């Protein structure tokens, strides 16, 4: 990975000094050996600050949206970031010519807390970038691990057990909205949860309100989710949020498939926001 890091630094310096891009988004070193932070490099001489190793756990793509309008921006993109780029393009938040994608095939990251493979990497379906302007390093094999084990477990529960599972899950939620802020699908200017709807949604700190928030957010992102797992990683309370997202991916595949998750191409429409005159209208 050290070679890859060197190449990223070289390429970032070259792109910045040639003026082709105004910024490069990647990772930088943190205060501890195993902590990395998203880093936006704007000067060629700072390119040496870019880091790429097994501790780059964050999904950086959403930083792109903070720098639109500043000319072309380069993004060091693994499979997950590249799908996010497609997601932004399909959601009209970005055009392809606004971003320069430095693709990096990703071997999977390590969870600093446990020393094991990060959960979102262990479930990853797309390790190689699906879109890139250049590729740094050789493509890695795609093991496509089974990602519905948790879904299977919840599905097998009885109604009561399932209720208890979700109650416990949302009982822990502190409504910090880290999941939303991390999500590349959440690009609304004003989230529904910030809106005033007296009697319908509140900001109270209880399981019902949290569940309402969680479920509505899940539906809002359901057909577009790129399965990066960043919501779950970002959650400070460790909620198993991906179980809902994976369930939706599987249901959409069953009902409207074949469907393998969002962000694999940069074109819409997504399964749940299509109008087809030959759609089955069972209720009519």
């Amino acid at each position, binding site marked *: 990975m050290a070679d890859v890091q060197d190449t990223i630094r070289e390429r970032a310096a070259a792109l910045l000094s040639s003026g082709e891009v105004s910024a490069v988004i990647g990772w930088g070193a943190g205060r501890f050996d195993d902590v990395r932070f998203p880093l936006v490099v704007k000067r060629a001489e700072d390119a040496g600050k870019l880091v790429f190793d097994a501790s780059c756990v964050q999904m950086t793509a959403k930083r792109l949206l903070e720098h639109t309008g500043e000319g072309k921006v380069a993004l060091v993109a693994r499979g997950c970031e590249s799908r996010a780029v497609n997601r932004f393009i399909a*959601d*009209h*938040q970005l055009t392809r010519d606004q971003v320069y994608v430095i693709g990096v095939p990703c071997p999977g990251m390590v969870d600093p807390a446990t020393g094991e493979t990060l959960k979102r990497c262990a479930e990853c379906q797309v390790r190689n970038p699906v879109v890139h302007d250049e590729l740094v390093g050789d493509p890695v094999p795609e093991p496509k691990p089974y990602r519905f084990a948790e879904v299977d477990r919840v599905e097998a529960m009885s109604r009561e057990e399932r209720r208890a599972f979700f109650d416990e899950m949302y009982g822990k939620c502190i409504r910090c909205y880290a999941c939303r802020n991390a999500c590349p699908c959440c*690009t*609304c*200017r*004003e*989230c*529904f949860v910030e*809106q005033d*709807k007296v*009697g*319908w949604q509140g900001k109270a700190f209880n399981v019902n309100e949290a569940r309402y928030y969680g479920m509505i957010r899940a539906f*809002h992102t359901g057909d577009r989710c790129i399965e990066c797992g960043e919501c779950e990683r970002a959650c400070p309370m460790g909620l198993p949020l991906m179980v809902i997202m994976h369930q939706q991916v599987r249901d959409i595949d069953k009902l409207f498939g074949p469907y393998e998750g969002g962000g694999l191409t940069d074109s*819409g*429409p*997504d399964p749940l*926001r*299509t*109008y087809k*005159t*030959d759609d089955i209208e069972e209720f009519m």
Partner: protein
Amino acid sequence: MSRIGVFVCHCGTNIAGTVDVEAVADAARQMPNVAYAGTNKYMCSAQGQDYIVDIIKEHNLDRVVIASCSPRMHERLFRKVLAEKTDLNPYLLEVANIREQCSWVHKDKQIGTPKAINLVAMAVAKADCDTQLFTHEIPVTKRALIIGGGIAGIQAALDIADAGFPVTIVERKTTIGGKMPMLDKTFPTLDCSACISTPKMSECEAHPLIEIKTLSEVEKVEGYIGNFDVTIREKAKYIDYDKCTGCGMCETKCPQKKIPSEFNQGMSTRTAVYKPFPQAVPSKPTIDADHCRMLTEGKCGVCAKVCPTGAIDYQDVDRVTTERYGAIVLATGYELIDWTRLYGEYGGGRYADVISGLQFERLVNASGPTEGHILRPSDGTEPKTMVIVKCVGSRDPHKGVPYCSRACCMYGAKHAHQFMDKVPGGKCFVFYMDVRTPGKNYDEFYMNTLHEGARYIRGRISKITRRSDGKLVCLGEDTLSGNVVEVDADMVVLETAMVPPEGAKKLAQTVNTQLGPEGFFTEAHPKLRPVETNTGGLYLAGTAQGPKDIPDTVAQAGAAAAKVIGLLCKQSIESNPMVAHVDDSKCSGCGACVDICPYSAVTLVEKTLRENSRKVTRTVAQVNEGLCQGCGACTVACRPGASDLLGFNDEGIMREVEAYATR
């Protein structure tokens, strides 16, 4: 605080019979913001309207809830009352449907009354959220497009053109005329079908305001009432109509002579360069690209050699044009059900002498393949015993279609009459389920056929087999006597069901309108708006809307024409203000609404907006108010709720639900 007036209608006993209307008014008085509640026997009557107007003035009301029939019925009328006789904006009105959705579906006042109160409470809650809405003017393009050139399309075209508006007829086949010129005689008067339809065809051709595009199909329709941009593909005819004189030399010399004639229902042949029948309009031939040897194999070229004016052009290509029309009439007609695929018991098409009613029309027609002599297709002999089977496909939900095709009883009787007229001593058996003759002089015609000796047997044929001597053994039951009937027939005529033409579904998508479950176009209201569709500016004529006979088709075409003329007469029309509206400040331009809109009414545009006292240019969604039909799909798809439907805003609907849920 709004001041809402609630007006509860008795509708005679329609509502008052199952709903205690006084109790509803009493309950309404207790509802928030209600300043007045009262009842009237007929709210829609002149006296009822005056009552509403007087109370609005007297009590200084600023919102109105009328609890009556479906808003589909009288909402427009009540809006008009508000607009013309009061100072209230007509969109500050809610209709609570306590008739169709309440009194008509319940029998018991104990159930009907509380439900009506709930419905009124919901309407009151929503009325409080209503805002003033304003219409604007949409210009009207004074041209009409007719899709389909059968008798319905022809009649509508002539009527509209005679009123002084230019008309384009788009016809998929090589000639206009549709099925009518194929028929021999028309019931009940027995006048010659071609003699009354072909003059209308040539009238169309000669009319200065009518343009005919044959071999053409509508590919795309954009725009809205008054302003449809229609893309039409006119397929290559391989003949330059400016040069062609219609002399027919090419037809005589074409070596490809064995192509089954569509006009004669496969009972004679035609050439590859052909005119389907002598009176075809345009009266010029077309080259059938699927059968022409020059176009399929690259060799032959006989027609080009013999053409005296050099009109043959093998290099001809499709022409695609886009033009603007104010109104569109769908007159796409019908097809006959493919009985061979469905009815194995009738031989599935393997017996040459089991023919369809339309084939019989050609057999009995003087210009048909047998010059009007009824002869069996198998051996050319005259059938002495003929069996007519009605309702083949019709009224047969298991194999065919569930509906009645309406014309078959009459043309079945006509076929029986014609057979007995042309074959002296011939025996005709008609197997029927019912005999339906509701038309002027129809039953008299049927009775006459009976008196001539046609044997009507109530029951269906269960099986037709062919014996080695060529007789068709028809097995059936006479359900009146309960006996099994067996007829050795020489020929069998199946009166087959009318079904929607191939491509109706695709056309419905193209023009953005609905089909019913049978596949015919749906009218806006079966009784009150029978020739309109739910899409403004789109009208229906003839069998495109459902099976009917020629008199009804022509009458409906005239009605559609009257609607079109009414529209085209206007300089401009009022827009519907109940359309989607996008709140730019909330819109992130994700385009979900663009993808989901069935009417292509939403587009993404770059807008310069003021945000936080800064000018920013962003992409946001914009609704074309002419195209928007107010369906609300975008408001549901919009996650932050930037898209809202005027007159049905999210707030109002939530308040309605609350009003119901908290009662």
